[in-house]
């Protein structure tokens, strides 16, 4: 049973847990302890060092900012003003708090407050739903539009929105890049006639894609009154991120092993059979490598695109907090940074697991 567990743990890329399982089973205590030291204790130590550097760095920046403020008050209002400012900073008053890189403790506090905020909003939503349940029922019967909650979204809501956008973009990328990639990989003529397009548009920045999509969607969507910001952001994400999949699919399809193609010929597979039974399966590992890159690129550009497209999500959360300038805005931005990083990491791990699952040359 534990052998199975080890295989699963390795499969999903959590191989560092292997020595713990083996140790719990009582296997080679010394060897597994060194493994644990290497794979678990050392990373934890490095996290602690990171936090320490962050703490010292943010304290130093805080002191510098405070000194600057006191000096400024001294220059403008003399000694009295400087003393007042020093006292004010000492008391931790919001109005004169030095605004700089937040410390780990502040970030943690912000994280907790964001969670608390989420709970409040959730409760609020629930109450709203209960309150409007009956009216909505009547409205639905009468065929009128329903009353929906229009309050402020919580941080967790923003994450969900971002994930939705990234998945919509990712799906779009798959639906565009994989079929086109297969077609281009199969036909040398198509490939050479469209190669310029790929080479030119591949390095274009997300921001420019967003503007391009904006130009088109704005015109197409003129008559409908739906909010086009989601449409714009997910299409841009898809267009920015699809190139890795496109290039990898072309490569995978056009470089199928010659021996394998000979088999297809000797078996006399029809053209469709050849594509679905031989070419696609053998290029699947490369396609999935492309998809993995696509998803991580999609998540990376999503933040910038949401920020510019004014579409709800983590990107606009970061931008709003930056514009907001409240005393805990900076620490909220850092929270968002970590959340973005961790979600990106998890998405990559999920893709890696799927990739391991479909690739046949495991050994």
């Amino acid at each position, binding site marked *: 049973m534990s052998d199975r567990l080890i295989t699963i743990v390795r499969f999903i890329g959590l191989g560092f847990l292997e020595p713990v399982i083996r140790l719990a089973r009582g296997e080679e205590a010394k060897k597994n302890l060194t493994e644990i030291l290497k794979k678990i204790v050392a990373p934890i130590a490095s996290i602690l060092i990171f936090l320490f550097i962050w703490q010292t760095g943010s304290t130093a920046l805080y002191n510098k900012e405070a000194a600057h403020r006191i000096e400024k008050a001294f220059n403008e209002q003399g000694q009295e003003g400087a003393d007042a400012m020093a006292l004010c900073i000492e008391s931790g008053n919001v109005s004169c708090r030095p605004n700089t890189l937040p410390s780990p403790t502040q970030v943690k506090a912000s994280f907790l407050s964001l969670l608390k905020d989420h709970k409040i909003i959730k409760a609020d939503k629930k109450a709203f739903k209960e309150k409007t349940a009956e009216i909505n029922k009547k409205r639905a019967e009468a065929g009128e539009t329903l009353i929906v909650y229009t309050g402020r979204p919580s941080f967790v809501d923003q994450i969900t929105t971002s994930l939705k956008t990234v998945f919509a973009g990712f799906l779009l990328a798959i639906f565009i890049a994989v079929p086109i990639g297969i077609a281009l990989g199969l036909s040398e003529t198509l490939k050479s006639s469209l190669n310029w397009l790929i080479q030119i548009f591949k390095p274009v920045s997300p921001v420019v894609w967003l503007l391009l999509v904006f130009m088109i969607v704005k015109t197409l969507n003129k008559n409908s009154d739906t909010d086009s910001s989601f449409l714009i952001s997910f299409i841009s994400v898809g267009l920015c991120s699809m190139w890795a999949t496109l290039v990898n699919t072309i490569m995978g399809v056009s470089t199928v092993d010659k*021996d394998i193609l000979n*088999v297809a*010929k000797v*078996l*006399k597979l029809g053209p469709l059979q050849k594509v679905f039974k031989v070419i696609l399966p053998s290029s699947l590992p490369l396609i999935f490598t492309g998809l993995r890159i696509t998803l991580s690129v999609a998540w990376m550009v999503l933040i910038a695109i949401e920020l510019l497209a004014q579409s709800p999500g983590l990107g606009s959360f970061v931008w709003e907090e930056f514009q907001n300038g409240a005393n805990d805005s900076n620490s909220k931005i850092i929270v968002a940074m970590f959340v973005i990083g961790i979600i990106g990491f998890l998405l990559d791990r999920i893709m890696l697991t799927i990739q391991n699952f479909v690739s046949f040359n495991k*050994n």
Partner: protein
Amino acid sequence: MAYLELNNIYKTYGKGTNATEVLSNINLHIEEGEFVAIVGFSGSGKTTLVNLINGLLKPTSGEVLFKGQPVIDTSHERGVIFQNYSLLPWLTVYQNISVAVKETFPKESKQFRDTRVKKYIEMVNLTPAIHKRPGELSGGMRQRVSIARALAMDPEMIIMDEPLGALDALTRGNLQDEILSIWDENKRTALLITNDVDEGIYMADRIIPLRPGPNATLGPEFKINIDRPRDKTLLNDDPEFKKTRNDIIEYLMEIGQERTTTSATEYILPELEPRHFD
């Protein structure tokens, strides 16, 4: 008219000044039910010759006739066993053979195909590994899958391109016997390409050496007048075996030497004396 005929085959790779003629003036006639072996050095164009016969390649000039019809494409009538197994790595043993059976017998029932696939897996003794992928099998097992796949398509002629080249001596011996018994059972025509003279003598009715390329061409044929079934252990003492073996090896050595003497350019070496350190 022979069963398989190769008439004045030339095969050139490349064009213009870069062209290299791999095969020149190949003439080969194989009768129905015959087992012919072609022996040659590595790099002499054996695989090119095989691909011309199975239809993967087209000759630059000359014609390949199979039952009187020119070969223009691959056909289910000619089963191929490739040198490097060429299994589809994402499919299991069963699926690899089932793909071939489905293509050859598209109109038969599922039941029929299933029994056929299982029968051939049984025949090469791979039933315990039926749901394994090629990556999990040893070289000998993979080649057995490849043999089962070729035979499951019920070809009239089996073309084998150094099928046992990469295997160890013991596995090799077993598979030679397996191939022979299958050939004997259904009296198919067989063409074996090999670099092992002993293997050729043990298995074939005729051995034809391929003179090394470029411009590879077939040498004089050697008939093997040893009664079947041949016994591998007794074969070594058979005077006929010894004689044929010596003749073929002598011939191959001769052309091997020819190759080295004709291709060697003379290098002028500087007149240097080793220095003496006292």
